[in-house]
């Protein structure tokens, strides 16, 4: 009996290699390559008036120094705008090396190539760049008032203005018995993978071929972009992602300037060239995310049912928009979460600032959206004095209403239509897990001990597995080894294991016989990339389909050879056998031998497959019409729309009455990503996501000063949480399979971090008794809010403490 593979918490195949030092990350490759380093702008907005490299040219080890003037043809043109959108009316991208203006600190201006990084940095220090300062725009408020412009030709600093609407919001709000308006804000954070970005290029002059290794989330994207820039035939460019030390979104942006420049220099110099980003470079020149200001107006009835929701927000997209406006589009659609909003309108403006560009970071716009919606739910509950979980459940989309169409367009330009989910069941599980109904007793007890505690909740729905497609390719060798390839990349999600589980289960082979390759354009040239929690859904299903094709072929050939009916065969542990009579059998490897008639007998398996082996009908061609040699198959999966995973989190926090220190006492998660391939990996993803969410809620922010300098551009000053800051996560799962794909799976990569800021805000608010409208929040900020609350500048919550003030009949603005 084959042991169950799909759905089992199987240990990862990649780990023995990674724990013994066998990982090969970008900077582990090309040990003898030349090293690149960059002179980057120290100013946020300036015109470049002169670049003087004379002092740098004779630094020992320097091979070449390049400025924009040295760049030829397409390399000198602006970088591509990858995802255009009709509402992105003023899309702007930078140059690989700044041309005459810099728009953020960290923008690359000069590239030095030298024998090693030490020499390259020495040379960088001796290059003088003269600047003429321009007015700097930092922060959403400054961008919004439009007094100074980031790009002269983008009026009001507006890159994009978009409105989506379903129903008549004005009418709904006018009719609603109660309305509330909330002003909210969320600050910038960043993906901050432990491995920075990097690219290593090898030019083969004899063959005119380029091989690029990049620490990227999309090798096909990088390959196509570099081929276009360098004006090379696509067939002459290969791109490979080696082991990648985390991505979380920042490595889906491409091509980064370095990804164009390093291969270009490698070709020009006919030498291997490598660039491995250092931490400071990562802070100031790799993308950030999250910064938004939001205004939400909600109308609701006495029961807390939302009748109309009007959301306006302003999104900080940084200096350029190479990845389009995916992030604010996601915010505007995904903030609806598990709820029916009544009439809904969302209007956003995506604004330029003189800070590093903004592209998706794990969760991609959802943490902001969920913050808006969940703060609103809490506000309604507080206003009416209804239990917060109860208000949520009164607004839930019910299981019997699935699939549910919101009448909006999602990030992929396709309908925002939920495929499945059971929100009441999830809430039930969450309430039990965290002890929702017993919390007031716990609070009372804590109060007696002089402790302040609060309970918070947050729900989300996450569109995962967006298209357009991914592919799977599978070849079975005569040894029985099964080689599987998919084009999307891996940054630690355990794809080698999860995809192998799918193949082992579908085909009936042992896990150790399945070998998975990801992110190598030599193995699979058609792919999109790893982002938006899409890998398992897209590649998982493509691989399953490809496996089914090969299995059908194997059974066909084996049935012929064993002279039995195909229907009577099964494959168990790599052996094709007659069901119930396993003595009539043949290993899959032998089927592979039969599938490929040979001329040359280079080994025993080949000897068995030559035309003299005597098993073939002389009247038929060795390879039948409509057949191909080999046990090989390929298929693609392309869905009509995204799948929608969902989840609910609750946390109990304690706030120190004196120091305002915030401690998370418990963190509970209910998670539904459809059918799970490997629950151990799914749970690992949830843990990691929650940790990043906690970072975003309590510690991480990008501290730009008014001149556009990032004041905390090191891990010393940017407070990424250590083990001491991250709570133990108690997680439970619900599996509502997706009806959209053969495996019933939904994505799980981002879930953990999406609602955390909302949940922690909810819990702190509950502990303190006044509204929390801005995240992240530090102890100092909480302490200041307390002072303002005591001074009467911030109103108290009405529920549960202090008791509602009957004299206050005004509709409060929070």
């Amino acid at each position, binding site marked *: 009996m084959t042991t169950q593979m799909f759905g089992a918490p199987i*240990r*990862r195949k990649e*780990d*023995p*290699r*990674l*724990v*013994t*030092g*066998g*990982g090969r*990350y970008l*900077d*582990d490759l090309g*040990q003898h390559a030349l090293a690149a380093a960059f002179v980057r702008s120290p100013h946020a907005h300036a015109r470049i008036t002169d670049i003087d490299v*004379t*002092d740098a040219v*004779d*630094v*020992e080890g320097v091979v070449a120094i390049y400025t924009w003037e040295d760049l030829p043809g397409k390399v000198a043109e602006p970088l591509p705008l990858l995802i255009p959108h009709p509402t992105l009316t003023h899309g702007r991208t930078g140059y690989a090396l700044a041309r005459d203006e810099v728009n953020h600190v960290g923008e690359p201006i000069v590239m030095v190539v030298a024998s*090693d990084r*030490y020499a390259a940095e*020495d040379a960088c220090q*001796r290059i003088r760049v003269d600047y003429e300062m321009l007015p700097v725009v930092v922060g959403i408020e400054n961008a919004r008032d439009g007094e100074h412009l980031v790009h002269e030709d983008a009026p009001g600093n507006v890159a994009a203005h978009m409105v989506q609407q379903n129903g008549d919001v004005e009418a709904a709000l006018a009719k609603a018995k109660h309305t509330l308006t909330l002003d909210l804000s969320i600050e910038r954070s960043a993906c901050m*993978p*432990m*491995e920075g970005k990097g690219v290593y290029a090898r030019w083969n002059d004899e063959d005119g071929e380029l091989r690029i290794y990049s620490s990227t989330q999309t090798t096909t994207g990088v390959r196509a972009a570099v081929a276009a820039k360098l004006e090379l035939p696509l067939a002459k460019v290969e791109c490979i992602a080696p*082991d*990648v*030390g*985390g991505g*979380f979104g920042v490595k889906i942006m491409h091509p980064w300037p370095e990804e164009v420049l390093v291969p270009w220099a490698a070709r020009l110099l006919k030498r291997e060239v490598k660039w491995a980003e*250092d*931490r400071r470079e990562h802070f100031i020149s790799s993308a950030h995310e999250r910064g938004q200001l939001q205004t939400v107006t909600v109308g609701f009835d006495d029961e807390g049912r939302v009748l109309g929701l009007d959301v306006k927000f302003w999104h900080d997209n940084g200096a350029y928009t190479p990845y389009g406006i995916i992030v604010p589009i996601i915010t505007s659609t995904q903030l609806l979460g598990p709820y029916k909003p009544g009439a809904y309108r969302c209007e956003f403006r995506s604004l330029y600032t003189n800070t590093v560009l903004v592209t998706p970071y794990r969760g991609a716009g959802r943490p902001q959206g969920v913050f808006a919606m969940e703060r609103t739910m809490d506000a309604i509950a507080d206003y009416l004095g209804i239990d917060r979980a109860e208000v949520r459940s009164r607004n839930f989309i019910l299981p019997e209403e699935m699939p549910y169409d919101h009448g909006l367009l999602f990030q992929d330009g396709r309908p925002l239509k939920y495929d499945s989910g059971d929100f009441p069941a999830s809430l039930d599980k969450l309430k039990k897990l965290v002890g929702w109904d017993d919390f007031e007793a716990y609070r009372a007890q804590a109060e007696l001990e002089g402790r302040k505690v609060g309970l918070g909740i947050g729900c989300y729905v996450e569109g995962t597995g967006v298209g357009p497609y991914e592919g799977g390719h599978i070849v079975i060798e005569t040894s029985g080894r099964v080689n599987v390839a998919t084009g999307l990349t891996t*940054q*630690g999600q*355990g794809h080698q294991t999860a995809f192998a589980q799918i193949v082992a289960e579908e085909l009936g082979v042992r896990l*150790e016989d399945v070998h998975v390759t990801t992110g190598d354009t030599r193995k699979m040239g058609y792919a999109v990339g790893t982002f938006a929690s899409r890998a398992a859904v897209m590649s998982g299903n493509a691989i399953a389909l490809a496996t089914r094709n090969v299995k059908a072929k194997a059974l066909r050939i084996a049935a012929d050879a064993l002279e039995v009916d195909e229907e009577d065969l099964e494959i168990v542990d790599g052996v094709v056998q007659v069901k119930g009579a396993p003595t009539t059998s043949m290993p899959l490897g032998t089927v592979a031998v039969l599938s490929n008639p040979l001329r040359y007998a280079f080994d025993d398996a080949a000897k068995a497959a030559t035309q003299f082996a005597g098993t073939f009908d002389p009247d038929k061609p060795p390879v039948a019409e409509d057949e191909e040699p080999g046990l090989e198959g390929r298929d693609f999966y392309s869905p009509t729309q995204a799948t929608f995973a969902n989840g609910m989190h609750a946390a109990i926090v304690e706030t120190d009455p004196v120091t305002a220190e915030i401690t998370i006492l418990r963190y509970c998660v209910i998670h539904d990503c459809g059918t799970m391939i490997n629950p*151990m*990996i799914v*749970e*690992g993803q*949830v*843990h*990691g*996501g*929650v*940790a*990043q969410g906690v970072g975003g809620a309590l510690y991480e922010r990008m501290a730009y000063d008014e001149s556009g300098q990032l004041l905390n551009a*090191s*891990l*010393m000053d940017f407070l*990424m949480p*250590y*083990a*001491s800051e*991250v709570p*133990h*996560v108690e997680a439970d799962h619900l599996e509502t399979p997706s009806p959209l794909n053969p495996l019933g799976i939904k994505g799980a990569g981002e879930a*953990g971090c999406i609602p955390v800021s909302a949940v922690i805000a909810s819990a702190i608010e509950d502990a303190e008794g006044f509204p929390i409208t801005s995240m992240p929040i530090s102890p100092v900020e909480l302490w200041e809010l307390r002072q303002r609350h005591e001074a009467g500048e911030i109103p108290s919550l009405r529920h549960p403490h202090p008791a509602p003030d009957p004299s206050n009949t005004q509709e409060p603005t929070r």
Partner: protein
Amino acid sequence: MTDMTTEQVHDVTVNVNGVPRTATVPARRLLSDFLRHDLELTGTHVGCEHGVCGACTVLLDGKPMRSCLMFAVTAQDHRITTVEGLCDAPDARPCATGERMNPAQQAFAECHGLQCGFCTPGFLTTVTAYLEENPSPSQEEAREAISGNLCRCTGYQNIVKSVLRAAEIRTERLEENAGESA
């Protein structure tokens, strides 16, 4: 014009993973770069180069040390153990796929204590040294022990679990070794 003269270099000999290794390097060569690029032992990773993340942690005479905060020349005549060297520890055992693993390595693989694996070598060296000092930590102590290393992927929960499991495996193997030599 440049006043740059040819950089003075030094012969550095360090005992790395039980083998004396020599390279000729400038005085400013970081120990992390020396290990990774001069000796091509790329298991040790660099995540920040300013002493905060712990990815570059190696054992210097058995004690955890951030190799990005030390010059190669100052490691002269010292004993360095990198993640590659943990596989040769007396309590390392071959796993099913052939790699030899010490208790920490084995535990991380068992408990899903890594995702991308980039921070992992630093955790493994740290944990290996810690268990020498505290062979049976509590859950809180295990968390404390790893709280100088950053991981962006795992949320630490499974790393804490790995530390506790490593302690168990270590004890078992010590007993086995004692039994064998008795």
